[in-house]
């Protein structure tokens, strides 16, 4: 059974536009299904018909909302979506067929989006540049490993999601939680795959886009720094990332960047680094480096 999880924060009109396509794609998947709309902060004005609504009294952001949905889901697979995503009818069936029982954490479709530089947000490569991990979009026509499945649309095993601990609340309310989760999966040898034959359409950060630019920039840099502090374990890469953050602290004059970096250090002091285990950073990056 597939449980579609759609966190939303007052996204009545977005759900009205996109939910019918999700229902059609699930109905064509060849599997049983359910839709859980996670009402983050109880801001929905109308309850969508034909779906389960999971109200969360306090709005805590995308990651905690998806985690709550995953806990409540009945399916053995999770279709994680944003409320501004429209699915093509065959998308869920193709993703379902592409997700093997073992060895893969998640499969992500082609994500057609106005935000995308290459026309598809779904494929990602990663490399270290000047001490920090940088992510690039990769256009592709065949299924291939991707650094992480973008949080707006992917299919994964619920068991894997929960065993990995779901999204890390430390990134809340948004940005970098999906990268972090996939990195933990890669660490355990669970790949993420980009499946361009499945197609969805992303309106483009409709909820986050309503936030002020400074807040988004601060959250982006906070998440970026947290990702390194929490996940990078190779001593050389870790020393390099600290050197890079020192350069940012010394020479970057943008308040959101410095605020984000300071917040990341504060959150990291409370949470600490993850225990060393599994694949090395170099091995993971070699799997997702752009050829």
């Amino acid at each position, binding site marked *: 059974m597939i449980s579609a999880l759609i966190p939303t924060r007052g996204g009545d009109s977005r759900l009205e536009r996109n939910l019918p396509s999700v229902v059609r794609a699930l109905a064509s998947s060849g599997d049983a299904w359910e839709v859980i709309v996670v009402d983050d902060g109880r801001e929905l004005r109308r309850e969508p018909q034909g779906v389960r609504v999971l109200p969360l009294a306090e709005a805590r952001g995308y990651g905690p909302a998806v985690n709550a949905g995953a806990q409540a889901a009945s399916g053995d697979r999770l279709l994680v979506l944003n409320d501004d995503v429209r699915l093509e009818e065959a998308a869920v069936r193709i993703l379902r067929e592409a997700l093997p029982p073992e060895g893969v954490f998640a499969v992500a479709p082609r994500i057609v989006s106005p935000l995308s530089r290459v026309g598809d947000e779904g494929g990602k490569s990663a490399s270290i*540049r*000047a*001490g*920090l991990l940088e992510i690039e979009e990769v256009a592709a026509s065949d299924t291939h490993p991707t650094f992480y499945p973008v949080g707006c649309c992917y299919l994964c095993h619920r068991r894997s999601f929960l065993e990995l601990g779901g999204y890390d609340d430390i990134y809340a309310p948004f940005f970098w939680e999906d990268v972090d989760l996939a990195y933990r999966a890669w660490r355990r040898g669970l790949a993420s795959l980009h499946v361009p034959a499945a197609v969805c359409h992303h309106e483009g950060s409709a909820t986050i886009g309503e936030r002020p630019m400074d807040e988004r920039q601060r959250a982006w840099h906070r998440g970026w720094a947290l990702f390194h*502090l929490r996940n990078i374990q190779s*001593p*050389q*890469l*870790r*020393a*390099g*990332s*600290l*050197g*890079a*953050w*020192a*350069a*940012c*602290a*010394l*020479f*970057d*004059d943008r*308040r959101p960047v*410095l*605020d984000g*970096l*300071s917040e990341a*250090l504060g959150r990291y002091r409370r949470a600490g680094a993850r225990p060393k285990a599994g694949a090395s950073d170099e091995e993971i990056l070699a799997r997702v480096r752009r050829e």
Partner: protein
Amino acid sequence: MKATRGSAPTGPEPPPLPDPLPDILDLARQEGALHGEGLASFLEALRARARLVLAERVERLDERLRMLEAELAWRRESIAALEENVRALGQQAEGLSEELRKSSEAHGALLAHHRELADELSRASGAHETLIGHHRELVDRVATELVSIASLSPLRARQARRRLLALAELLRADSR
């Protein structure tokens, strides 16, 4: 206490920028990133990232400079247009001033003519009053004489005719 960089805020100024550098260096020291191979990686990344950050800052400044130059050009054009407007309005004001001067002169001449006409009217009114007084007196004398003539006896017709002729002569003389 949270580290900051820059001076303390005064009045409505924004708070000083946070300074995460001491925390980063503390962490780097704790993790051994400031010794041996770690230090080499730390410094290499610091240099490379500093170049990127500074290049981005220069790019932002260039962009800001381009915007300011465009704004300056726009301001110059606006000032030139305003100066042209001022010049045109100055010319218009000069024309209106000359027109006003001519109108003032014409107005003065009209006032003088008006005063002359008023004097003439005053004189004519005086003469008219004198003439009316004279005519009233004449009519009164003629009426008195006619009453007197009418009271004469028919036997004194010659006297009556003579006095009537005298009256006629009087009226004829006044009509000249």
